[in-house]
């Protein structure tokens, strides 16, 4: 299993860079992953990340793009502005969650 060092911690990731063990995740690590994706996390980013984390905890899966756009407090345009070129995948990666499996 590949590993990388983020914020001084050794993190297990899969071949595509998604974290394997979510218990290793914290907000500092999120900021480091975001930096690798060239994203500087703002309060609006955190609205989305917190929403995804909460949904994952309660439902066991990453919410769809549509649901995030409707319920996170950031609309669809905002999602693509904050996480260009792949909002759900990038946000899931920053949340330390597995790669999203939904097609929509």
């Amino acid at each position, binding site marked *: 299993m590949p590993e990388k060092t983020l914020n001084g911690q050794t993190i297990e990731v899969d071949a595509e860079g998604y974290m394997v063990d979510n218990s290793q995740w914290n907000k500092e690590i999120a900021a480091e992953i975001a930096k690798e994706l060239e994203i500087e996390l703002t309060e609006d980013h955190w609205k989305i990340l917190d929403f995804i984390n909460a949904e994952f905890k309660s439902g066991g899966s990453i919410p*769809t*793009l*549509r*649901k995030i*756009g409707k319920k996170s407090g950031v*609309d*669809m*345009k905002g999602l*693509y502005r904050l996480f*260009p*070129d*792949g*909002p*759900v*995948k990038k946000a899931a990666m920053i949340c330390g969650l597995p790669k999203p499996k*939904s*097609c*929509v």
Partner: protein
Amino acid sequence: MAEEKVKEPIKRVSIIISKGSLDGIYPGLIMANGARMEGIEAMVFFTFFGLDAIIKKNMNNVKVATVGNPGMRMPGGIPMPTVLGAIPGMSAFATFMMNKEMDSLDIPPIGEFIEMLDAAGAEIYACKAAMDMFHYTEKDLTEEVSEVLTIGDFYEKSAGSQIIFT
């Protein structure tokens, strides 16, 4: 042995939606949205009966075609004899069922889907020949449509794209 070529990732897709039934329109919409979710540029070109997806008065009233559709199955998965597809109400029932399934997968109704694509930065175009054929004008189009294109314009805008016909 030949060396394995490095596969070039897809950067832009140009999706043509030409069919007007629910099952004709959704695949192209889902593929366009999926492209944007992967960071791939996407344009969607609506032609022939596919235009219904961007015509304001028709877009939320699109049905599943049950006549001449040998792929239809009844609840429980038994193949449906094609002749039953012509029974009054069958198309409405199949449409109701499909909309319910779509909703459970969080796939939006067509009108909302077009809005979603627009917000995601996909480009939405109408075909001039089809508009003329059905006597539609720009006033009939939903506001997310950015332009009415001739086939020539379509190919020009598709530069660098993979063209997908549905």
